[in-house]
């Protein structure tokens, strides 16, 4: 078995939901085999009123689509705010102020974890971030604004999880681009959407006029490559030395440092092996006398993001607890209406089946199965379509929340779809199925006579 398939399988089986889903699916297949004659009846009855079947399935698809879209957003937000206990990152920023602006000298101290005495721990690795915003023209028109992360290129691949799942080809390209930037610091790498927005090609040279570092303009930047699709698609990467050298040059030329010279470090990532080390590092950094002007704080990446999301708390709550349930309710109602109509139309037929010796429970199960079949199949089709359209065509959902890039639909959506469709159909068809179960033969025929 190829190793990536093996990895995928292991990852898949990691989630109990996946295992339950597969088990249910297999159970369904066995049931279908045992119940083949019933199944034929179910298919026939679905084909009898194709319009209604189509309407039900269209409703399921559309509503499943919207739930998957919402869940994709919530899923990622949950994922990034879930605390990890192993191999996670801590973020160091200015303690009180937003935006965080620290002196670059903090980096070296943080590299040692602000260790002062023997026995103090160090982070496994660190990566520091400097933000540089600039436009392509001196007039500073917002349309061609580029926001750069000035970083040490050597840290990009080891530290940034964004590039963990890219293809081998993309990785090779990125490695090549990083090597090139290390060789010539004037080279920059841009996200694809960023490149598209400023309407430039790879290979072109541009001049940058800064909007946050007034007076630090950078000429002759060569767009060397693009970043793989992902979170950074709207941003650019630049060698940190380019900015820091320009700041030094400013001081030499003007005789005094740039106003932001002591505030050029925006945040620092620390790679942490486990929670024990995290606690120890937090103590060291918190009690260090090196961080006084300004004071700093260390937090896990997830808690940092959670603080940002606080502003959206009510909206996210509404999406999770009002919107999604409401959509589910509407879907079950549509199902309930459709199935109850179909049962009412087929009362005679059900009576005939009862006369032929079908028990009430098989009849009820047939109605349930009919609904669940429509729901599951439509849900699955919709999930595949949503995944394909949002990820491959739209390049992610652009939801205006904090600094998040377009949201992608996770692969898990492929089981969310059939699950949502099947369960709502089941809920919606319970009452009509019960009424089908309790059809009274004598009554139906009395009415006909």
């Amino acid at each position, binding site marked *: 078995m190829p190793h990536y398939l093996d990895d995928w399988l292991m990852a898949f089986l990691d989630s109990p939901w996946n295992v339950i889903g597969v088990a249910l699916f297999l159970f369904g297949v066995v049931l279908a085999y045992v119940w083949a004659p019933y199944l034929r009846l179910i298919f026939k009855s679905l084909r009898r009123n194709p*319009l*209604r079947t189509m*309407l*039900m399935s*269209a*409703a399921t698809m*559309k*509503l499943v*689509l*919207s739930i998957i879209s919402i869940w994709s957003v919530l899923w990622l937000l949950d994922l990034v705010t879930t605390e990890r206990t192993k191999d996670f990152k801590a973020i160091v*920023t*200015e*303690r*009180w*102020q*937003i*935006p965080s602006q620290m002196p670059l000298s903090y980096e070296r101290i943080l590299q040692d974890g602000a260790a002062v005495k023997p026995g103090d721990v160090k982070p496994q690795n660190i990566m520091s971030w400097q933000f540089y915003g600039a436009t392509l023209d001196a007039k*500073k028109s*917002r349309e061609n604004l580029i*926001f750069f992360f000035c970083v040490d290129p050597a840290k990009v691949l080891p530290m940034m999880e964004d590039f963990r799942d890219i293809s081998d080809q993309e990785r090779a390209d990125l490695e090549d681009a990083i090597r090139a930037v290390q060789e010539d610091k004037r080279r920059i790498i841009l996200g694809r959407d960023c490149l598209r927005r400023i309407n430039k090609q790879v290979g072109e040279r541009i001049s940058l006029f800064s*909007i946050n570092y*007034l007076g630090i303009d950078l000429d002759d930047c060569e767009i060397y490559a693009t970043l793989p699709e992902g979170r950074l698609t709207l941003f650019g990467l630049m060698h940190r030395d380019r900015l820091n050298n320009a700041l030094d040059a400013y001081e030499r030329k003007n005789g005094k440092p740039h106003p932001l010279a002591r505030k050029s470090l925006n945040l620092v990532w620390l790679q942490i092996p486990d929670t024990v080390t995290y606690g120890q590092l937090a103590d060291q950094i918190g009690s260090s006398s090196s961080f006084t*002007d*300004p004071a700093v*704080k260390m*937090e896990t990446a997830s*808690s940092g993001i*959670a*603080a*940002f999301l*606080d*502003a*959206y*708390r*009510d*909206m996210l709550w*509404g999406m999770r607890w*009002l*919107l999604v349930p*409401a*959509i589910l*309710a*509407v*879907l079950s*109602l*549509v199902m*309930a*209406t*459709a199935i*109850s*109509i179909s049962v*009412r*139309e087929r009362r005679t037929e059900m009576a005939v089946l009862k006369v032929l010796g079908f028990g009430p429970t098989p009849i009820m199960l047939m109605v349930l199965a009919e609904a669940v079949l429509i729901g599951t199949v439509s849900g699955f089709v919709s999930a595949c379509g949503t995944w*394909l*359209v949002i990820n*491959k*065509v739209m390049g992610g959902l652009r*939801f*205006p929340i904090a*600094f998040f890039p377009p949201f992608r639909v996770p692969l898990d959506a492929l089981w969310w779809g059939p699950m949502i469709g099947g369960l709502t159909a089941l809920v919606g068809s319970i009452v009509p199925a019960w009424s089908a179960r309790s059809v009274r033969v004598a009554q139906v025929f009395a009415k006909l006579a």
Partner: protein
Amino acid sequence: MSILVKILLILVVGFGGLIAVAVALMLLLGCGLTLVLLLQFLGVLRRIPLGYNLRNLFVRWPTTLLTALAFTVVVSLLVMMLAFVNGLFELTQASGQTVNVLVLSDGATEESVSSLGYGDITTLNQYPAIVKDEKGEPLISWEVYLVVNQPIQNAKPGGQQRRFLQVRGLMDPARTGRVHNIALHPGGAWFTQAGVQPLPGSTTGEQAVQVVLGEGIARVLGTDQGKPSLEVGDVFPMAERQWIVVGILQSSGSTFDSEIWAKQQIVGEKFGKPSYSTVVLRTADTDAARRAAQDLSDNFKPAVAAQVETAYYEKLNGTNQSFLYAALAVASVMALGGVLGVMNTMFAAISQRQKDIGVLRILGYARWQILESFFLESLLLALIGGAIGCLLGWMVDGWSASSIISSGSGGGGRSVVFKLVVDSKILLGGLAFSLLMGNIGGLLPALSAMRVRPLESLR
């Protein structure tokens, strides 16, 4: 891969276009039918009695209920979402005065990134367009706006640990209050010249920083201490100091509702932002404000960015707009549920009432009258569901929520506490939306009812 993507794109766009055209046609037809309905009710055109539809709805009440319920859910949610967005819009509209000019540093678009060097800019105090109070002092407010990241007091373990607080440091709070037309709730006072007072009950002689709180943030901080709201005299910790509430602002409905006001020197030093970020000047009237903003932007040295205060807050509408579009997008997706529900129901109703239709046609009713009758029935269904939905949605009016407002161009933004606002416009919009769903959903079945052949239906 890219070919596949293109084909998919063409399919999606093409399909979307087709659907859009179909919906547009249906809407047009639906409007026409609604007009005819109106004429029928005015007695200009003859119609099948309304009682016929009402009673049929009543006779098959379980289906009616289920279908109407779908409308209720969709409409109530739409009303709630619009109330959220509306509250935000009202907030940005109510914040700021048309006679005030807001001055930020050159190039700054938001207060949080503005920094005015104190020394060079004091000449603003003498700017001629500023109106004077009765003592002859200019009505000008010097402020520093800060966002601080703060651990939450008594945070639940595993829950959220930190939040952002908005702090505004002021030179003269009473004057700032006058410039912004904001008064204190009775029982409160502005903070003193010193800005500090002895911490009650402290044996070490610790000084607490005096603050004035917006109502919204007072509620938020109150929840941390298990009270509905902080009151005058309450103390809370922030940035390793104790802060004592001396007044609560009558700030409901403005962005100041989410702010903590304190002495500028103290917060500037504490949070490392010693200069001012914002100067707000009061002028005589709207016109004067506009002229002063223009003049300051063009001619003042050192360069500043000046704008009428209301214009500044209007620019913070960007996210509201996005939320509005998102709400409408979600509602229209959910609307499909209502539409398909009513379609199913009406198709079934029509197939059950083939004979009725046949009889009516034989008695002399025309096709269009049959069409209108069934169309009306869908609208009735929508109206029942929609009206209940509006009532449910109305309940959120006045609820408190927090969100963010920003110009929408990435980053920045300020979190605000605000009230959801349901007004007549939203309620009518909800009803109209509901009728629209009924309209689209009812059209096809009604058209099919029109095509019933009377003789065959009676056989």
